[in-house]
């Protein structure tokens, strides 16, 4: 947050821990079928790893990793992936959000599984981008004073 509080120990530990949190977040999103978790939790973990870098390093380094401009577009993209999955099912002749009509696999149960995965990716992307953008908005005023 403040440039003067750039402690080397804190920044080193943060840069070591942050990739592992990010990896765990991706695991939680993509392994949501088999273990507890899903899009919301995984997206929050991804956002936590990005926010950790932003807190520990200077704000410039955090902006290099994930620019603040990307927040709202990526969040909208996540919601659009969700709506797009539903509308694709509508396009191929089913009901809205009925994944059994998506032409992704032969078996109907596997089709539903892939549909759930698509939706979870959308949720994770939206939650990550929006949490980071809220954090950026809270600290916005300081950079421009």
């Amino acid at each position, binding site marked *: 947050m403040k440039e003067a509080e750039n402690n080397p120990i804190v920044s080193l530990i943060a840069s070591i821990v942050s990739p592992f949190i990010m990896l765990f977040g991706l695991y939680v999103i993509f392994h949501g079928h088999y*273990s507890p978790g899903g899009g919301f939790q995984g997206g929050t973990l991804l956002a936590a790893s990005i926010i950790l870098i932003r807190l520990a390093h200077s704000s410039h380094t955090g902006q290099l990793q994930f620019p603040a401009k990307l927040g709202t577009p990526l969040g*909208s993209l996540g919601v659009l992936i969700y709506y797009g999955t539903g509308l694709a099912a509508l396009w191929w002749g089913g009901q809205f959000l009925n994944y059994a009509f998506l032409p992704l696999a032969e078996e109907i149960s596997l089709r539903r*599984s892939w549909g759930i995965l698509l939706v979870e990716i959308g949720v994770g992307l939206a939650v990550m981008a929006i949490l980071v953008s809220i954090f950026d908005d809270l600290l*916005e005023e300081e950079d421009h004073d």
Partner: protein
Amino acid sequence: MKDQRLKIVNYSLLLIFLALLIYASLGLSPRGDLNSWVNREESAAHSPNAATYYIRHAYHDTHSPNMVTAILADYRGYDTLGEETVILTAGIICFLLLRRERRKTKNSKNKEIKAEK
């Protein structure tokens, strides 16, 4: 003196609320009770219960062993859709409310440039 009386009123209200909550929780069935209405196959109105359907068919329908994910993203997909829309709305509202400063400074800069011209 007035503060003291207010404090007494506060704590007595809290205690009454606590007693009410404990009394209400006595009516709940114990967790994991097979005979409670939630865990039966038929509800009290003799219609099939949703929970038993999910437990029996979730794996065959969606091919995902984690039942919670199947319910959240497939059976109750509309719910998650609404939840995500709410999150997006919250993000956009934070964007609109908190990023106003920068737009003002940009406008003022533009005005300055125009004034210089």
